[in-house]
């Protein structure tokens, strides 16, 4: 009788022990602890840092390498920045030579993510390389590919997708968080794209002037007629601009600027009936904003509202 009880007894004890030792597997619905990175993910520009913050969520630190007020195309990293890049979980680059320093710096290739590479076939080739200047960086010319693709929200979404893919591949976040965060970001970027659609609809066949080739990507996507007239927002109306202005039979009404134009330039523009519109690319951090996405939304909304205001007719 006692012998008959021994085997079932052992089975019961073993079964109990197996359950107690954690035979259960976590279900996908269980909340997982956020992954702890050893240091911040580094981004070469503020748009990338903003996209990365949105993709990675609030628990993962992201550091924008370029400081406020600097132009990423001219900024050079310090030894400390480059040493931090060696230790960082990842380095996000825009590509298309927007960070010239990155082509010679000793960056870890397996953790360096060139966020524009996936849609390289969509890059715009800038064949004309007229020399011009804006800000304090001196004269320069653009040749090769236009690196401002983040200005097209749907290409910014592609950059975010590249960040998400790297984040999952390199283990910066877990899959559940990545999906939720990305869905939120996608909604925000689609809202920006919708604003561009509204702006393009309002503008119709009007030509818009721009002081820099920053807006060529959204212009191409939405069929905007854009003419680039190199004027430094900090300076005044130029002779070249005057010649171009004089040649036009139908004068444009809007002039897009990367930054607030100077008072003198504004008054010239007003005299000519040109409305200055500031659409900031937000390449470097801007005081008072936590994300470049907020800057873009604010500027696009302001432009859209201006176009839709009754006084504009």
């Amino acid at each position, binding site marked *: 009788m006692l012998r008959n009880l021994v085997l079932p007894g052992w089975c019961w004890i073993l079964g109990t022990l197996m359950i107690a030792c954690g035979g259960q597997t976590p279900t996908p619905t269980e909340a997982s602890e956020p992954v702890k990175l050893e240091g911040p993910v580094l981004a070469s520009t503020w748009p990338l840092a903003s996209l990365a913050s949105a993709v990675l969520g609030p628990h993962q630190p992201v550091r924008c390498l370029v400081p406020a007020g600097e132009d990423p195309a001219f900024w050079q990293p310090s*030894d400390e920045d480059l*040493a931090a890049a*060696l230790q960082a979980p990842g380095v996000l680059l825009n590509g298309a030579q927007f960070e010239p320093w990155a082509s010679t710096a*000793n*960056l870890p*290739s*397996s953790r360096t993510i060139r966020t524009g590479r996936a849609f390289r076939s969509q890059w715009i080739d800038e064949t004309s390389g007229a*020399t011009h200047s804006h800000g304090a960086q001196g004269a320069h010319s653009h040749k090769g590919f236009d690196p401002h693709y983040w200005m097209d929200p749907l290409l910014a979404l592609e950059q975010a997708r590249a960040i998400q893919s790297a984040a999952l591949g390199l283990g910066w976040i877990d899959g559940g968080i990545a999906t939720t965060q990305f869905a939120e970001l996608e909604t925000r970027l689609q809202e920006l794209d919708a604003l561009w659609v509204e702006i393009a609809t309002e503008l119709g066949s009007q030509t818009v002037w721009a002081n820099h080739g920053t807006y060529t990507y959204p212009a191409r996507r939405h069929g905007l007629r854009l003419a680039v007239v190199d004027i430094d927002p900090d300076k005044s109306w130029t002779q070249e601009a005057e010649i171009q202005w004089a040649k036009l039979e139908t004068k444009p009404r809007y002039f897009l600027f990367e930054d607030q134009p100077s008072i003198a330039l504004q008054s010239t523009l007003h005299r000519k009936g040109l409305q200055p519109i500031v659409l900031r690319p937000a390449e470097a951090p801007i005081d008072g904003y936590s994300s470049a996405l907020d800057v873009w939304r604010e500027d696009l909304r302001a432009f859209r509202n201006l176009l839709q205001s009754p006084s504009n007719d």
Partner: protein
Amino acid sequence: MKGLLWLVRKQLAHHRVRSALLAACLGLVLFIPLRGTWLVQRYDHDLRARAATTPLVLGQPGNRFDLCLGTLFFRQARLRPMPWSAASEWTDRRDMVAVPMHLGHHVQGAPLVGVTPEYFERRGLQLAAGQWPLRPGEIVLGATFAQELQARVGGIVRSDPAFGFGLDGPASQELRITGILKRAFAPDDRAALGSLSTTWLLDGHLHGHDSAQDLRAQQPDLVLAESGDQVLLSGAVVPDQEAQRDLKRLHLHGSNEALPISAILIWPDDEMVRTIAQTEVNAEGTWHMLRPAQVIDDLMAQTLRLKTLIDRLVWVLGLGMACLFAVISLQSAQLRAAELITLRRMGAPPGYAARLIGLEVLAVALSAGGLAAAAAWCASRALPNLVHVL
């Protein structure tokens, strides 16, 4: 027995030159296979240890031994270059770590290897002093090389001219030592390591010089042609030789994608990734992917076959030596016939003479063995590691 040993000692001491010569000859015959075995064992160990820590190597199709020994041991090998664009396919993958490397340059006779920072991580290299190279023109030195050079962090060394003393090749460059590595007991100890951009700088792909505008104004004879905003400069423009002092002047000509690399070291996440990657690459045929461990196995199989042959020859030599030794011993016994008869008359037991001669032979053989072992040990200290020499 005590008396026997005393007689052996006296006999060997009396004929000390003959005994020493016999021991030395026999020792030499023993030394060769002994040293050969140690040498090959160490060579085998060092080669395999390095190969075992490098799962895959990707390069241009060609001599697999060159590719393997060049990338693992920085051996002088003319590896056909691959374009940098070929590397991104591998560096972007998340199921492996790929380290592009550029070989072929030298600093003060030591190999200068261009790598990405993952190389240091994967090889477990650590800094004894200073910091990792961050920019073009910065290098870290292996421990042995730094010691030989008596280098210090912050010092400057000049690269060896890429094309000897040819005037048309890129100029040698001043390179700044940013760090010295801890001893790793690996080929890295005898090398200088820098970024890929440093080796491109030495190739001349990356260089600095006065701007075209300045040259047009100051040395118009160096401007060969102008068209729109394009300026064709003469080959006589002297590029900067201290490029790392003014990095803003550095620029690349041509596409980044076309910059050369020698090979890519690959650390896949698991065996499946490794097998699939190797099969796909080798089936496609543009590049060649090999497992260094297999290549070293093949290399060692060749080496061991050669060693077996040499061992057999040494045994034949040893047999000849043994015969000669036997003849000398028999002759010696014949010469000592009177002495041995005297011993028997003095009451030595039967077989005493045979034991005496046997012990003498044994003593010489043991001395020879000791000499061979000592010589082999000294040689192992004095001779360089075959991995660095061959």
